């Protein structure tokens, strides 16, 4: 009887050990799956399709219609030191989330010589929310203090290489030319202004104002693709 008990006891112990073992195996499998493999991030490069400006390029001037009906060019701003050119639109959630910040940037930097110039690059036939009339409503409703231009021929955004809204190009006047100094995002948190840690664009403008080299020249952000 005693030996039988010991036998049962040992069997149960064996089962317990097996169970624990299989549990460990399962964990190892999961760990394998989550292991970071540097080589797997290797990308087969597509043929280069990226066009548009790089840092240091001269940006083209343009003549585009503002929501008030007047035509606007960079050359109209004789006293500006540069420009914060932002491709944006009426309803893209990331553009809408950025509206107040864009107004604040204009208020902060226009007096310092870097006004905001907003441009809607979208084709209203593809994106019906981005017609000129709706742009006028948006500018009024959101209290835009800067020109909100319509890239009706869709040529300006293409030259700049803007792929999405919002997409920022910071320009500085140098010897009568507008040189691209920063490309990318407004800051590091499009969704939540109060959680922003790094104001990429504002930092870049401040560095230009101080005559310093811009530390972060290019950043990335999620945005709505330009509707062609």
């Amino acid at each position: 009887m005693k030996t039988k008990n010991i036998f049962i006891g040992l069997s149960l112990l064996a089962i317990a050990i097996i169970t624990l073992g299989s549990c460990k195996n399962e964990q190892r499998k999961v760990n394998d799956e989550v292991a970071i493999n540097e080589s797997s991030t290797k990308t087969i490069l597509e043929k280069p399709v990226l066009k548009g400006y790089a840092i240091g390029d001269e940006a083209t001037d343009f003549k585009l219609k503002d929501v008030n009906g007047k035509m606007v060019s960079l050359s109209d701003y004789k006293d500006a030191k540069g420009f914060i050119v932002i491709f944006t639109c009426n309803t893209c959630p990331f553009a809408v989330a950025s509206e107040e910040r864009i107004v604040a940037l204009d208020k902060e930097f226009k007096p310092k010589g870097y006004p905001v110039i907003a441009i809607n690059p979208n084709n209203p036939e593809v994106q019906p929310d981005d017609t000129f009339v709706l742009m006028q409503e948006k500018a009024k409703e959101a209290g835009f203090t800067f020109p909100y231009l319509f890239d009706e021929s869709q040529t300006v955004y293409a030259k700049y290489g803007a792929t999405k809204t919002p997409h920022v190009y910071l320009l500085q006047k140098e010897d009568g030319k507008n040189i691209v100094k920063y490309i990318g995002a407004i800051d590091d948190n499009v969704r939540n202004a109060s959680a922003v840690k790094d104001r990429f664009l504002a930092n870049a403008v401040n560095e230009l104002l101080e005559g310093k080299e811009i530390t972060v020249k290019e950043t990335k952000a999620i945005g709505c693709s330009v509707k062609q």
Partner: protein
Amino acid sequence: MKLLSIILYVFLFQSCADKKADLKINETVSEIAIKENLSKGNQFENTKIASLNFEALQQKFFQKKTDSIYIINFWATWCKPCVKELPAFEKIASDYSNKKVKVLLVSLDFPDKIETQVVPFMKNNNIKSEVVLLDDADANSWIPKVSPEWSGAIPATIIYKKENRKFYERSFTFEELESELKIFL
């Protein structure tokens, strides 16, 4: 002796279960069940929306070493070209399901829109592919990790099989997606 063994057994089983639970928490996955009949099996099955930060997404879905081809599409319900191309991805997933092709739809919708927009969208459009929410605000830090070529515009797609990987910042028709997929088959 017998009793002791049972206690030991229960104890070991318990500790194992705890470890599994910990693992799940570590993955920071919060799950919202959208169907009550959670079916087992296919890991890319559409039964829930997991919310992940980029690191968790990358670890979970970007580095699989199986023989399957993974098609990972970045989209959002508010992105018109994304919504327009979703049927192509769904059709690929169903037409090639027996050829080890798996589709994952990574939503970039705002987290507070999951229940009001994403889940109803999936139901209304009968989306079968697995959908996860990428909830990671600092896009500047993770966009280049998806691909150095990515400007951040969506839709964007990765196709990979083991070490081979291609990135696309563009929209697809079914035929276009199929011809890209065939490179990996």
